[in-house]
């Protein structure tokens, strides 16, 4: 389904989405992030600081609550994931592809009821990147494209005075149908314009590119013991920026948070975690399988470009460039992959 929305009517469409809570990028203290929509929604944002992964995989999530009176068995109360229906506007295609990768992880082997519980109530309305959202974009080199609909329910393309909305899933169609008369059939010129703009976007070079993503997994395997890892990892300060801002990083921690002692009361809480944190893999004994900065950088990069490929046939990285642009010390995953893969 491809339909036209006048530029000025976006808010009306959002208003027409009954039963959906809408989110779109906005700025708070100059930080671009997905927040409940406030009129007018403009969709003129660069890459948001964080990808929209919070919607299905919030940074903090309670799985169940427990209560235990001394001498009695504990009582557990499961928590159900928030059932609100959320629609997120302005999602870049790289982040859309990130959603797919997250879906893969949380459905593989056993289904994560919390992730999927949220996910099934989530819709993503994407925004085609007619020009790169940042100088660090490299989606094309990792199998993506600035107009990809992967993971998105609708893709919006800016045609100058109007948006062209293309549905990519049945949910997307539902969303568009809710707009009713707001949406009109595109003209032939508009269709041609769309094609032209998409082609242009695809042709536009990105400043950054993974050299040979197809062979990256093999090359990374070959160079697992390369001294380059320690060399490149030396600059790393072991913060969580690259992983917390990544649309596909899913590692987490589970802890009991206690909020009362008479009776014992609390909950089991999932919080994000990062393989870049020093104690992420540390055993209780103090033994740490990945105890150096280099080994942790290797883990992150290998996971994105090798392990995920080995398991699911595609790189996990979607080329959004956040880990590059936000790294405090300028570690560039593209550079790392290219250098390691190129080394002998």
């Amino acid at each position: 389904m491809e339909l036209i929305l006048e530029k000025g009517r976006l808010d009306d469409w959002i208003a027409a989405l009954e039963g959906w809570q809408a989110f779109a990028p906005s700025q708070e203290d100059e930080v671009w992030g997905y927040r409940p929509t406030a009129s007018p929604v403009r969709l003129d944002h660069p890459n948001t600081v964080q990808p929209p992964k919070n919607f299905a995989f919030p940074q903090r999530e309670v799985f169940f609550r427990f209560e235990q009176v001394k001498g009695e068995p504990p009582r557990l109360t499961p928590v159900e994931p928030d059932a609100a229906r959320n629609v997120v506007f302005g999602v870049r295609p790289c982040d859309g592809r990130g959603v797919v990768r997250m879906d893969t992880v949380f459905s593989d082997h056993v289904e994560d009821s919390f992730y999927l519980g949220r996910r099934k109530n989530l819709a993503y309305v994407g925004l085609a990147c007619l020009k790169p959202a940042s100088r660090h974009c490299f989606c094309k080199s990792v199998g993506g494209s600035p107009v990809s609909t992967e993971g998105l329910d609708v893709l919006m393309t800016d045609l100058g005075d109007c948006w062209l909305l293309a549905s990519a899933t049945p949910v997307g169609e539902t969303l568009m149908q809710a707009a009713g008369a707001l949406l009109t059939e595109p003209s032939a010129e508009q269709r041609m314009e769309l094609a032209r703009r998409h082609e242009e976007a695809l042709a536009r070079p990105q400043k950054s590119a993974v050299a040979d993503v197809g062979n990256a997994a093999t090359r990374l395997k070959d160079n697992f013991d390369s001294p380059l890892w320690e060399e490149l990892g030396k600059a790393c300060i072991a913060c969580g920026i690259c992983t917390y801002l990544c649309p596909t990083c899913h590692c987490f921690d589970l802890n009991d948070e206690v909020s009362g002692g008479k009776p014992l009361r609390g909950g089991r809480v999932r919080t994000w975690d990062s393989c870049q944190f020093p104690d992420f893999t540390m055993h209780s004994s103090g033994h740490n399988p990945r105890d150096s900065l280099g080994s942790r950088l290797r883990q992150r990069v290998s996971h994105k470009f090798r392990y995920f490929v080995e398991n699911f046939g595609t790189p996990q990285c979607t080329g959004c460039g956040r880990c590059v642009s936000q790294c405090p010390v300028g570690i560039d995953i593209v550079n790392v992959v290219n250098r390691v893969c190129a080394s002998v």
Partner: protein
Amino acid sequence: MGDNIYLPQLARVSYIKEEVAGERAIKTFRLEFAEGEGFEHECGQCAMLSIFGKGEAMISIASAPHVKTYKQFSIMRVGRVTSAFHELSVGDVVGIRGPYGNSFPVHDWRGKNLIFIGGGCGLAPIWPVIQTAVAQREHFRDITVFYGGRSPRDIMYQAELEKLRGAADVHLSVDKAEEGWNAYCGFVPANLMDKEPSPENAIAITCGPPIMIKFVIQNLRSLGFRDEQIYTTIENKMKCGLGKCGRCNVGKDYVCVKGPVYSWDVLKDLPAEY
């Protein structure tokens, strides 16, 4: 909600035995599901045990699958959760979810000689295999158990090991000689070399401290064991047990799913990040 994969079942502690005292104390616990059937498991699988308010810890199940009334765990006191376990009394109720991970292909080993090599608390993960083999004694040929601790006081399952003697060759050892110790003195890998088990139609299963495993595998190979004849288990820090939290990741594997049991020919190709 039935599909809350992180929600533990409740289990009651029915038995506690202090195996080893001291700073690295080990206690054995038997847990009985508080309601319902609980779950079945296979040799080598683990379960995530909870003490509410403290957290969870992945512990290998030390009872054999044919034991239906309880699940046994031998837990060394190392951190927050395991310390809380050591404070439990019989009758206390804890959380348990599982079973997690793969298992030893015990069925495939029928007709073979089984050689178990354990050290310290590494006897627990292979104990279900030993128990299974003994229970199905007719299906296996020779069963040999090598097991050692730092001192006689660090030997766990002492009574059980004695009971085993009829069904299996048991070779115990302690690291340093001590009065009253009549068996072998020295490290487990050395005891292994001392007894020189034959690789002929044999499977070697080893578990213990990483450094011990390293030398055991070295020694087994020098005795002529092929990589696929050697099995071990690896332990990594785990939080979810479900292949999601990313913590136990070694190469492409999540140990909680693809492990903990590995044959050496598979394991040797994984990064040594465990």
